[in-house]
């Protein structure tokens, strides 16, 4: 039996994405597409996890994680308390 394929999932921060399509164009497996001017993973099963979309993204709008990695609530920007100043999180 062939070795089971590693799977990945994508975290998209839609309100950061400006639809420049750098990630779409330079994805080696054409996993991503633009929908309504925002990126979305059209073929996530094809993803090989090279993370070039995440690294080249100028807007910090996409992240790639291995499927087994759990996403906790605080990973999402929607759960960040922006009423606190950034200094509040400093050691």
């Amino acid at each position, binding site marked *: 039996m062939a070795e089971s394929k590693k799977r990945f999932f994508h975290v998209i921060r839609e309100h950061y994405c400006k639809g420049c399509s750098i990630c779409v164009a330079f994805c080696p497996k054409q996993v991503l597409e633009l929908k309504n001017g925002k990126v979305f993973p059209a073929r996530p099963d094809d993803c090989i996890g090279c993370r070039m979309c995440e690294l080249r993204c*100028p807007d910090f709008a996409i992240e790639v994680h291995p499927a087994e990695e759990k996403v906790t609530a605080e990973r999402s920007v929607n759960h960040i308390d922006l009423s606190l100043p950034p200094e509040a*999180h400093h050691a």
Partner: protein
Amino acid sequence: MAEFLSYFRQDRLPHIWCPGCGNGTVTGALIRAIDKLGLDKNNIVVVSGIGCSSRAVGYLDFDTLHTTHGRAIAFATGVKLARPRLKVIVITGDGDSAAIGGNHLIHAARRNIDITTIIINNNIYGMTSGQASPMTPHGMLGTTAPYGNVEYNFDLCELAKAAGATYVARATTYHYVLLEDLISKALMHKGFAVVEALSQCPTYFGRKNKIGGAVDTLNWIKEQTVNVKAAAALPAEKRAGKILIGELHSVEKAEFTQQYLELIARVQRANPTYARNKGVPGCELNSD
């Protein structure tokens, strides 16, 4: 990686840069390099001048200093001398560092002060609508060069090297992995380190020169460059006109703040009255 976003003032995001602007990529590379090296964010100062690239400090959750046009390195020199233990990083653009701040760049390089300078070179003055900068290549178009630029551009890396910088490297936003690697090395280098990050300005440089959007401009940058290691094996005609990327220069040389502190200690030993009076009046040493 929520850890990645924790280096940002998230209430300021999303940032103001145009769609497809390379400044975000270079900022991301700096953050990931700092994260990988495990540097303490309370000991990092990021200084910038004026320009699109210099807006980066507004989004970064370090101690940051947004200064006057071209004077980022001058302010950074002051910060470094006042608190030598801090890691001082300068984010500057091509207009900021090569035009109005060119003098500061060469003199910081001459002193070999321990500052990491990241020059985001997008070949044009992006913030003020695309005037030709000292880094606009010969023959390219800009608002102030509608029939082609008749001036020649600097080779910033050669300039920094000749001025005495001890670490000089160049990468592009297309070659992201190389860029992050070179920024890491520059951060760990003791002495004046310059990393020139060739970046795309799709809004002005790409559009004015009919190159296209962000993706086309990135591909254009890719075609212009060749790695310095690969170039060594290439025949001269294939190398002609290409911009070299990679680590271009790295030497060890005595660093400025270190020598300055040693000088103070030496003078105090030779003049015990200075030490007894805690130095020259009005010039107290820092408590830390």
